[in-house]
């Protein structure tokens, strides 16, 4: 290390700054960018003809301009690296990149995190936003939804934070309090007219993605099995509710109980033959399965309704329906409680059940990490050969991860179907799998809190930034690439649950 550094120093000193070299590099980069992107962006096809737009706006889709930008950037960095301090700076940045993860492991001290203060601050900030919202300065629904989001993140942090054995645990009281707040606040806010149905729906969708992210996290993050067909289990859950209602007169609650079993069974059927396989083969096989399921759902028109989709029933509150007029032999919710009819009740009810289930799932998944099964997942991810030689049945352990992931996906699917009231196969395409995967990747594979934040961000931010809707997928893709190169452990690096060392005085 020191010799290398000395060598670098000598080199930088002896050569000085070579402008010509930098210019050459910059122009090559610029010309390459122009040639690669120019035809696609500046020559736009129109029927059998084309239009030439040399000054196209925005600059992102103007290859000629991008060429100049890239050339300038390259020139800047090329000159920067040739100065002493710039060289050191680049070295320091490079040390965090994916190439040098080995040294990252050995870093003795981790940075202390300040998550609780950060959460308190963001709660305060969102409360301020909410009061602003009351005056009408910003959208009040969004502001109050933000409060709920912060509360939810806080709750999930409280559930998943590693607790030391034998130390006083302040979360014992605050987690139930947070849960109660997260459960009751939406009712109060909605009845006060501060949280309209739109935002309840957005929050519900966000929680569905949290659930999906948590499920895929078991498979990809903890067990290290890249599953590109995760959406298949999501589809199984959703179609189970819709088909069950259509053919077996099954209600939401029955489906909610049975769908996980069905999803687990399908996970086992799909998983068992493929889990002997190597990492990337598994990815492709699961992708194939996902596509097969989607194509069958699309083409089997008699049974699934094909591309037209089919309706899915809404949940009932102890047999009371949320529709304006109940079906034969049932009573609507609003007449039973002598309330005026409102579509909000249904949205609110779905949100609340989902919230409770996500909280239970969080607790459950967090416990799993401490249990032998969770530890074997992570061990198997790190070194399969070593685990097998230690007597871990790798197929069974992987299968359990695969099945638990499937269960979570199935539950999410039931909620998705009932939330939409209608499903069709286009909701379960490959992009959906990629979206869930990017939640897991961005959040940090294996880190519960990171995944929750990523899921909330990736589903709620597009609602706020509608202007950038066209660029959404592009940004996802770029984020995936950049995260893999610069932060392969995600936004929040997973903290492995540890037990206090049992060595009293190692002297």
């Amino acid at each position, binding site marked *: 290390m020191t010799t290398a550094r000395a060598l670098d120093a000598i080199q930088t000193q002896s050569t000085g700054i070579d402008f010509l070299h930098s210019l050459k590099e910059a122009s090559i980069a610029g010309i390459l960018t122009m040639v690669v992107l120019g035809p696609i962006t500046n020559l*736009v096809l129109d029927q059998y*003809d084309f239009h030439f737009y040399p000054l196209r706006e925005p600059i992102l889709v103007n290859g000629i301009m991008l060429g100049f930008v890239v050339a300038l950037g390259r020139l800047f960095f090329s000159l920067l690296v040739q100065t002493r301090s710039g060289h050191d700076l680049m070295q320091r940045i490079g040390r965090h990149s994916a*190439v040098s993860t080995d040294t990252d492991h050995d870093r003795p001290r981790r940075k202390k995190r300040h998550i609780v203060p950060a959460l308190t601050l963001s709660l305060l900030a969102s409360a301020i936003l909410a009061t602003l919202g009351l005056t009408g300065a910003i959208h009040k629904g969004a502001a109050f939804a933000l409060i709920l989001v912060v509360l939810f993140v806080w709750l999930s942090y409280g559930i998943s934070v590693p607790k030391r054995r034998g130390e006083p645990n302040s979360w014992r009281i605050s987690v139930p309090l947070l849960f109660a707040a997260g459960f009751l606040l939406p009712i109060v806010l909605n009845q006060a007219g501060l949280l309209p149905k739109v935002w309840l729906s957005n929050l519900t969708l966000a929680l569905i993605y949290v659930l999906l992210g948590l499920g895929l996290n078991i498979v990809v993050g903890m067990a290290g099995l890249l599953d590109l067909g995760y959406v298949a289990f999501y589809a199984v859950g959703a179609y189970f509710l819709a088909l069950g209602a259509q053919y077996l007169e099954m209600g939401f609650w029955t489906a909610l109980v049975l769908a996980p079993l069905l999803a687990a069974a399908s996970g086992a059927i799909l998983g068992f033959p493929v889990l002997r396989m*190597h990492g990337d083969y598994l990815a492709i096989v699961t*992708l194939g*399965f996902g596509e097969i399921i989607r194509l069958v759902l699309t*083409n089997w028109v008699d049974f699934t309704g094909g591309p037209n989709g089919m309706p899915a029933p809404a949940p009932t509150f102890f047999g009371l329906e949320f529709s304006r007029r109940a079906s034969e032999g049932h009573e609507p919710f609003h007449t039973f409680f002598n309330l005026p009819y409102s579509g909000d009740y249904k949205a609110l009810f779905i949100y609340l059940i989902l919230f409770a289930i996500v909280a239970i799932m969080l607790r459950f998944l967090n416990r799993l990490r401490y249990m032998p099964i969770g530890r074997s997942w992570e061990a198997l991810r790190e070194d399969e050969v070593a685990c097998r030689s230690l007597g871990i049945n790798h197929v069974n352990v992987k299968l359990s991860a695969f099945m638990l992931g499937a269960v979570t996906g199935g539950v999410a699917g039931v909620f998705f179907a009932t939330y939409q009231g209608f499903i069709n196969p286009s909701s379960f395409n490959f992009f959906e799998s990629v979206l869930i995967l990017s939640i897991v990747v961005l959040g940090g594979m294996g880190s519960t809190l990171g995944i929750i934040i990523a899921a909330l961000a990736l589903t709620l931010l597009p609602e706020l930034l509608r202007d950038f809707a066209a660029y959404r997928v592009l940004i*996802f893709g770029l984020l*995936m*690439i950049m995260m893999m190169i610069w932060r392969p452990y995600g936004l929040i690096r997973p903290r492995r649950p540890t037990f206090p060392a049992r060595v009293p005085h190692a002297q």
Partner: protein
Amino acid sequence: MDSYILGQQLVNGLTLGSIYGLIAIGYTMVYGIIGMINFAHGDVYMISAYISAIALAVVSYFGVQSIPFALLFTLIITMIITGMYGWSIERTVYRPLRSTNRLAPLISAIGVSLVLQNYVQIAQGPNVQGVPTLIDGSFRVGTPEHFVQIKYMSLMIIVISILAMGILTWLIHGTSLGRQFRATQQDRKMATILGINTTRIISMVFVIGSVMAAIAGVLVTLNYGSFDFFIGFIVGIKAFSAAVLGGIGSLPGAMLGGLLLGILESLFSGYVSSDYKDVFSFSVLVLVLIFKPSGLLGRPAVEKV
């Protein structure tokens, strides 16, 4: 079962299969040399379809009447630009990740695939694009009632594919570059020690794979006449299936797998159901991976401890 129907399906299958084979080469070469599934390869093929349409439009804008010249120009321009795509993607995205675990390159390859698709969608619009039919007509083999119809375009696809694969085989087995490639494929570390610039070889592999995809892109665009930004996904997976079927990492395997998958697929859609032909191709992929992961011509993977 009439033999002329079978013959027709075989011709269709060969046409389709040559395309799969050309694209499968990109998957199999990259997998052979760095053990990574280049998920974005299908989208490189999609890009080449767009570039070929743009090149054709530009040629006709300048009033070139000669069809052979227009085709040659389109082919060469598309090969060059698509090759540059392959090089740039490898240089910017995959090279920084070469020493990481196996998941990272695959995930970023998915990212590249998303970026390419969405970028083209933004730049060129989401509509289906097309090119005019340049090579028309067909000839018939057989009796006037029972015949196999072969389009000139199909013939051209098969001939050009065979030519391209022949050149590639010569490149791999007869040149210094090919020798370096084979050495790198066998043992990268040892090849580096022996003075082979393996980084350059890996870049070249991406370029060659993309150039092959570009040939496929030009041929498909001319044959079907229409394409959109999403064509790379399905074709990419099928070409990957072809590579797996033939034995991933093996060049003759990719060609054989491509032809075989093309023929199987058109037989299936001819005799069973054309709605489920994609399901069939994916099932072939899944079944091969489960029962014979080394494929037809591949060597079984040895797990090194």
